Each structure stands twice: as structure tokens, then as C-alpha cells.
């Protein structure tokens, strides 16, 4: 740790000094006179103090090569990675400043600098690299990392051509133009030599160069890396200058956090209190680590107390977000259950048919998605959207075939139906295995379905799960409308309530049964499309859902669709809230036990069918 600090102490001043020389007229210097406010949350106030310290401590603008090198070398053995990241952070800031301030005219041309790389000693090379890193040129990170890895070559021409050998293969490219270069030219180049200390410094400089990138994402990630190291006063001063200029609110936020984190070690208690006040708002793990250290070690009791209080407030917010996260996971698991169970609820609720092949209908939907993706490989988004109706039709047709071929002969014999449909499920599984393969099929997700929505550092919601939640609710509402508003729905409900009477009134019950079963099966197919985005698509995938789906139906009751909705969401929540405490398997077992106990209380589920018909 100390050596890390040392490195930053060495690199930081050097860069900061450079910066001072070239940026004398800059705005932050104007604030120099202002004294730091105790609540120094505002960047403009706290900045100048440290900056004025700067030249006093380290007035020499020229980097002192000797001590730095030795330190870097010494530390390379100890903690290379940490040192690297840290040093990189330090350096980057200052260099970035150099560039961003009116320093550009003074800076040598980037291409000239690149051509200078093969010349001189290791130290010269380091100096050039440092300048390059400060240039902010997008070519620089690649060049510097190639140099560090020994892939940067120079030809014997004058001026030399600088080439980058590709990390793999024999090809490469020109460092300046970026053009591809044939292998023959590459093999003619000479490796630009580096040694360990330089290599180490280079890695840092690569990071620095990345931080200078115009992309705020890259700046943010550099800052996050910076947070993990220790920050000395020089760097701190530099951070102040960054605060001045940062436009991106998120990066700004990070900047302030990083700065405050560093100030936790400031000399005056006022400053430290101010830092704690800033950090209260952050949820980052490093902030908690820093505050914990303050609570444990700070000399001033007020600061300790403030830090402890800040920690508490952070903790309670984290807990709130964890709860939100669990809630989301629960809803998400519930939406999956809802999709899987809703088709079952229709066939079971309306027709009293236990369809053990329901899981296999889900599988068919998932395979339809895969098949369509293989048909039109280029268009992921449209293939997913196309898969929804396709899966509905395919699974629906399989369902209708099942109903006409087998189930219609077994009405009124639910246990026989259960066994027969189980047989069908075995046949469908084996058919898929024989037709395609027993292995899982890869189903890709379009961009908008991958990644996650990061609300804050402790709460990230996966897009795929958000979409599936929305999708499940859409399917549910659509089904509700079909049942309530269409003539098919009316007939289905009529048959469910009184089959002989419906038949007497001219409803073709056989036809309604087939369509109802097809509808339930089709929805299973749609569920398969959604599940293909979450889990593996394979011949056995249906089995994973069948028991869960039945649990939902048993829990919710077969009386109405709302029962399925509440049942699915309830079980999803229950599982996800149990999981952190008990582990996934035990949570599943506990939920099963809960259901067994639950039906003691309500044998027909949450929303039972009532009336004389239900008693029969």
C-alpha cells in the first residue's frame, strides 16, 4: 500500500507541475485566494487550497527521473497491478489537464512524438510516452499498449515507420495511419525495446490515455479504478481541476466521490467532515470501505460519529435497494411463472384437463424461436418479434392436434388425461431430441434485450427480465380481454360453467374445447419465446416448469385468471425473498411445503370456483 502511495506521489507531482506551468491563466487559479470552507462539498472552494500547495511541495516542473524509476521498479515486484492502476489514475488527470488547457500549441505534434519513440534511452522513451498519453489522441492507447507488450516495431527508414504487430497472427498495421500492413513489412521491423520499469509506467500511461478519451463511459471507468488506489494531495488538486470542466453529470458525481474519498485523510477535521457529508450520498462499495476505515481510525470523534452515521444512512439505503431488487427478482420470477402457468390455467380451469405436456409446449415455442433465428440469422430483433406469433401458431396447432387426437376421448377422466398427456410429453421430448439433438440450442438475444438498467451501484435491473415482466403482463391482459370481450371467450366460459347447457344452446363444445386447448397451448408457446431469452433451450427445458406451473394453479385456484396472476407473483416473490436466506434449492422446497400447508386452509386455492357446480 505504501509503495502505491509513493508511486502516486512521484508521478502525481510531476504531471501536476507540468499542468501548472501550462495552465497558469486557468480559472481555478483565480479561486486561489479563497479559503476552504469546512463543508467543502463545493468543488470550486476546496480546490484552490490544494493547488496552491502544489508548487510549494514539488516546485520542479521537470520530472525527477531517478527516484521515480527506482520506486516503480521496486514496486513492480510487489504489487504490479495495483500500482499500475493507481499510477495511471494519477498521471492521467494531470496529463489530461495539460491537453485540455491551452497547452496544445506547446505540445509537439503527435505523429512526431510517435516517430521519436524508437530513439534515445528508456527514460527518453518514457518522456515521449508521457507526452503522448497527454495528447488525448485516440491512436495513443493502442500504440502504448503495443509498446508495453513488445509489439511496437520500427523500420530502418528515416524517419522510421512505426508498426504495430497484431497480438495474434503475423499481420499488423501502421501505427500512425492505422492501415493494415503485410506480414513481410512487419517482419522487417525491429522491436522497440522496453524494460520492466518502463513497461510498468507504460501500463499506467495507457490508462491515462484512456481517461483522456472523449467518451464519458471511459472516463467513468477510469475514475472507478482510481477509487481503489490511494490519492495524494497533488492528485487531489488535479481532481479539482477536473471538477471544473466535467460536463457529464455521472462522471461529475464520481469525481466528487473520488475527491471526497481522498479527503477522508485530509489534515483538518473540517475537511474530513465535509468529505463525509459528500460521501453520504454514495452507494459505492469503496466509499463504504473508506468510511469504515474512518470510523475505525479517525482521530477526531466528531468525524468518526459523522462517518458512522453516514454509513448507517448508506446502509439503510442499500437495504432499501436490496429490497427493491428482491422485489424485482420476485416479480420477474413471477412473470416467468405467470407465462408458464397461464396456459395451463386455461386448459385446467376451463376444461378440467391436466396437461402434463404443457412444459413441452413451452419447449416447442422456444425451439420455434431458435428455428426462426436460424432461418433469418441477420435480424435478431425481427426474428424475436416474428417468433411470438409463430410460436403461438406452432404450439397452438400441436395443442389442437393433442386435443383432437387424444384428450377429447378422455373428458371426465382427469387422471387418465394426466397420464395420457404425460405420455405425449415423453414423445414430444424424444421427438425433439431425435430431430434436432439432445444438446441445448443457442438462442441469441437482440441488443435491447441484453445488458441491464443500472439505477445505481447496488441496483441493476436486467433488461431481458424487465421486458419479460412487461410481456407477461401484456399477454395476461390480452388473454383477459379475449376471455371477457370476444365471442370465443364467451363460449369458453359458457362451456366451463355448464357444458350440457352450452351444448343445448348450440355451442359446438367440441370445437370450443379444441380452440380453448389450442389457445392454452399457444400461450405456452409464447412463454417459450420469452423463456428462450432467459434459459437454455433444450429438450428437457419443459420439465423444469411443469411442477412450478401446477403449483401456481393449485395456489391461485382455477376460478379465474386473476388467481393465476396473484398465484404466480406470490410464489415468485416468496421464492426470491427466501432465496437469500436459504439458498435456491431450499427455497423451492420451502415453497412446496408452504403450498401443501396452504391447501389445508384453502383446498381450492386463493380464488376458488364457487357454487354448486364446484361442489360436484
Amino acid at each position, binding site marked *: 500500500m505504501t509503495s502505491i502511495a509513493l508511486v502516486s506521489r512521484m508521478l502525481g507531482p510531476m504531471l501536476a507541475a507540468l499542468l501548472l506551468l501550462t495552465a497558469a491563466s486557468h480559472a481555478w487559479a483565480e479561486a486561489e485566494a479563497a479559503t476552504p470552507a469546512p463543508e467543502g462539498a463545493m468543488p470550486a472552494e476546496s480546490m484552490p487550497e490544494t493547488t496552491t500547495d502544489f508548487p510549494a511541495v514539488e516546485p520542479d516542473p521537470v520530472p525527477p527521473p531517478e527516484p521515480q524509476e527506482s520506486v516503480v521498479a521496486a514496486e513492480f515486484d510487489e504489487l504490479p497491478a495495483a500500482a499500475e492502476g493507481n499510477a495511471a489514475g494519477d498521471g492521467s488527470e494531470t496529463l489530461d489537464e495539460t491537453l485540455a488547457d491551452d497547452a496544445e500549441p506547446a505540445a509537439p505534434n503527435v505523429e512526431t512524438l510517435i516517430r521519436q519513440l524508437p530513439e534515445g534511452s528508456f527514460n527518453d522513451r518514457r518522456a515521449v510516452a508521457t507526452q503522448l498519453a497527454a495528447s488525448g489522441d485516440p491512436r495513443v492507447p493502442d500504440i502504448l499498449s503495443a509498446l508495453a507488450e513488445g509489439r511496437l516495431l520500427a523500420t530502418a527508414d528515416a524517419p522510421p515507420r512505426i508498426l504495430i504487430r497484431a497480438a495474434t497472427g503475423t499481420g499488423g498495421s501502421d501505427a500512425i495511419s492505422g492501415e493494415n500492413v503485410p506480414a513481410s513489412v512487419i517482419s522487417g521491423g525491429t522491436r522497440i525495446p522496453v524494460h520492466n520499469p518502463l513497461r510498468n509506467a507504460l501500463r499506467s500511461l495507457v490508462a491515462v490515455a484512456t481517461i483522456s478519451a472523449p467518451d464519458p463511459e471511459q472516463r467513468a471507468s477510469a475514475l472507478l479504478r482510481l477509487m481503489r488506489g490511494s490519492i495524494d494531495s497533488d492528485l487531489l488538486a488535479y481532481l479539482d481541476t477536473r471538477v471544473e470542466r466535467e460536463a457529464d453529470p455521472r462522471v461529475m458525481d464520481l469525481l466528487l466521490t473520488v475527491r471526497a474519498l481522498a479527503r477522508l485523510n485530509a489534515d483538518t477535521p473540517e475537511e474530513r467532515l465535509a468529505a463525509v457529508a459528500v460521501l453520504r450520498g454514495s452507494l459505492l462499495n469503496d466509499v463504504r470501505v473508506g468510511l469504515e476505515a474512518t470510523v475505525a481510525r479517525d482521530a477526531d470523534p466528531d468525524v468518526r460519529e459523522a462517518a458512522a452515521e453516514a454509513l448507517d444512512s448508506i446502509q439503510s439505503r442499500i437495504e432499501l435497494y436490496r429490497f427493491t431488487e428482491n422485489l424485482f427478482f420476485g416479480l420477474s420470477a413471477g412473470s416467468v411463472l405467470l407465462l408458464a402457468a397461464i396456459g395451463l390455467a386455461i386448459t385446467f380451469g376451463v376444461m378440467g384437463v391436466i396437461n402434463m405436456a404443457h412444459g413441452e409446449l413451452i419447449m416447442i415455442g422456444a425451439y420455434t424461436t431458435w428455428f426462426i433465428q436460424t432461418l433469418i440469422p441477420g435480424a435478431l430483433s425481427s426474428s424475436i418479434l416474428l417468433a411470438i406469433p409463430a410460436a403461438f401458431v406452432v404450439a397452438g396447432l400441436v395443442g389442437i392436434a393433442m386435443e383432437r387426437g387424444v384428450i377429447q376421448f378422455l373428458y371426465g377422466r382427469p387422471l387418465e388425461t394426466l397420464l395420457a398427456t404425460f405420455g405425449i410429453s415423453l414423445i414430444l421430448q*424424444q421427438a425433439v431430441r431425435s430431430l434436432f439433438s439432445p444438446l441445448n440450442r443457442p438462442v441469441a438475444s437482440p441488443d435491447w434485450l441484453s445488458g441491464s438498467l443500472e439505477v445505481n451501484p447496488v441496483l441493476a435491473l436486467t433488461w431481458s427480465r424487465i421486458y419479460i415482466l412487461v410481456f407477461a403482463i401484456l399477454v395476461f391482459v390480452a388473454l383477459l380481454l379475449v376471455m371477457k370481450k370476444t365471442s370465443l371467450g364467451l363460449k369458453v366460459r359458457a362451456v366451463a360453467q355448464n357444458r350440457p347447457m352450452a351444448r343445448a344452446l348450440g355451442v359446438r363444445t367440441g370445437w370450443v374445447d379444441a380452440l380453448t386447448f389450442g389457445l392454452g397451448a399457444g400461450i405456452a408457446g409464447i412463454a417459450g419465446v420469452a423463456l428462450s431469452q432467459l434459459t437454455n433451450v433444450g429438450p428437457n427445458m419443459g420439465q423444469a416448469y411443469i*411442477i412450478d406451473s401446477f403449483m401456481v394453479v393449485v395456489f391461485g385456484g382455477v376460478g379465474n385468471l386473476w388467481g393465476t396472476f396473484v398465484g404466480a407473483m406470490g410464489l415468485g416473490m416468496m421464492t426470491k425473498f427466501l432465496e437469500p436466506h436459504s439458498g435456491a434449492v431450499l427455497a423451492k422446497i420451502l415453497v412446496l411445503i408452504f403450498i401443501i400447508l396452504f391447501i389445508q386452509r384453502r383446498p381450492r386455492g386463493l380464488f376458488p370456483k364457487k357454487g354448486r357446480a364446484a361442489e360436484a
Partner: protein
Amino acid sequence: MLTRRLFLSDWGGITVLVLLLAMTVAVPYANLALPPESPWHLSTYWVALIGKFLTFALLALAIDLIWGYAGILSLGHGAFFGLGGYAMGMYLTRQIGDRGVYGNPELPDFMVFLSYDSLPWFWWGFDMFWFAMAMVVLVPGLLALVFGWLAFRSRVGGVYFAIITQALVFALMLAFFRNEMGFGGNNGLTDFKDILGFSVQARETRVGLFVASAVVLILAYVASRYIVTSRYGRVLIALRDAESRTRFAGYRVEHYKLWLFVFSAMLAGIAGALYVPQVGIINPGEFAPLRSIEAVLWVAVGGRGSLFGAIIGAFTVNGAKTWFTTAYPEAWLFALGALFVLVTLFLPRGLVGIFRRKRKGEGA
């Protein structure tokens, strides 16, 4: 009088019993007494295979008793079978002693591997044969008692019962897959050496286990036959066909179902206990829902509602499975699936139904 009641007009049952008795004598003779060159010699592989079928037949009998007579379809009888099997497996594991890979006299290999320092409490007593045998019936019986009590008193029946029994066996499977359960996790219990001091690999032991399975099956058949021909059995048929009416006749239906369920679970437990030493392993795969449903199919194929039909069904389906999985492994699941569909569609009374003249009005 009693024999008359038990066997009167049960010609199928008598035939099956005679066949079983003949098997009990002939199979050991063909294996032990006849020289290997003899065309009538039966290899030990076959003895173990038929012995396994006998335990399956016992499981089928247990299922038929509740499904065929009380109309309770359990899709989770594998749970009781497996628990009985685990109880026996624990006894056999304890008999390994210090002959395991790690040579620990107290702890089975997997516990040494998972760095247990002492035997968990629920393993206590399983080094004693009588204790293990008591657990073979008590553990499944107790589970059935608790589960059945909860289910029947809240009048969970029909498909709901079928589903929650399936959930039960599924939950057990998940639980036993966990290493923390202390039952060997994924691998289960295996590498058995001795049973009652006899090597489980020895030919004589195999034949002994075969005879034990056959005798237990015969006894279980007679006991089940006693139950179904008693007034208890008539109450069962009554509640199967008209549960409400039975209740209004003053019978506490839940109790009738419950005790039958417990008895059936115990039979299944015994079947599991006889199965394990003959196949040499017990693992959580026995709790797979598919296994339990398959066992229901044996009963359906043989003919539910006739006890000997269950035995015939178990032999038929498992015989077919053995042949299929060696001859056409790909096609077995197709065949099994088709069997489910065809039997329910065309043979609601199973194979027995083909031969039996249908008595008019006799309920299915």
C-alpha cells in the same frame, strides 16, 4: 373361511401366486444347482434382473392398492420407494466399515470427502439391521401419515393430490441432491460390501435376495387381498365411487384413505429396501418424478383395480424396457409415451381387462 374369502373367484390372482411360488423355487435351482452348460441354467444377471422386477411389482402393488381401490392417484410413490431404499442403503453403507477408499471405520467415504468429523445424528443406529429394517417401513410410513393427513383432511383429491405428490417427490429429489443433506448428494450411496455378513456380490446372496423379494411380494399380495376383501375394502370402493355418499353413511373417509396410504407407502418402502442391494446403488434419481409416473404406468398397463394385474404390469413394462433399451435405446421414450396414450385410450382396464369378462356395472 378366510382362504375362501381371499381367493374365491380370484383366478388371476391364484395363477400369479402359483407362478411366483414356482419362480421362488425354480430360479434358485436353475442358478445354483444347474451347471452353467445346461440350457436351463439361469445366470446371476438374470436372477438379479428378475429380482429387481419383483421389487417393482411390489411397488406396483402398493400403487394399485390406493389407485385401483381408493381412487387416489399418487404420482409420488417413488418418494416412499426411495426412502426405503435409502434406509437400506444407509445400513449397507455402514456395513462397509473401514473397507472404503478412505478406510475410515466410522464415516462413509463421502463424509470423509466432505470433511465431516462425526456421523450425523440421523445416521445413528443404521449399523444395526433391525433398526434399519424398522426405518424402512417407519420413515415412508411416517411421511405418508403426515402428508396424507394434511392432504386428505383438507379433501385434496383427484388431480390436485396427484400434483402435490409429484411436488413432494420433486422436493425430495432436490433435497437429496444437496450434499448438505448427508446422504451422499448426487452420487447417492453405493459400493456396498456386505448384507448381514454375506457379500452382496456373491451368487448365493443374490439368490437369497431374490427369494426374499418373491416371498415378500407373495405376503404383501395376500395382505393386500385381505384388506380389499374386508369391509374396509368395500368402504374403499364405496368412497372411490361415491365419496360424499360414503361420508353421509357415517364413514370418516379421510381415515380410510390415510391408513391405506400409509400401508401402501410402507409396501413401497419395503420394495425400495429390497431393490437397493440387488442393484447395488441408491441415488436421488429414484426420486425423479418420471420414475414415479412410470410406476403408475405399470399399474395402468396391468390393470388397475386388480391386485395381480399390477404385478403383471410391472413385469410386462419392465421386461419391455429392458429389451427396448438394449435393442432400440432411441425408441424407448417413444414406446413409453405411446404406451401411456394407448393404454389410457384403449385399455382402461389394462391387460387384465382383455381377459376378464366384464361384470356389468363394475366401476372402473
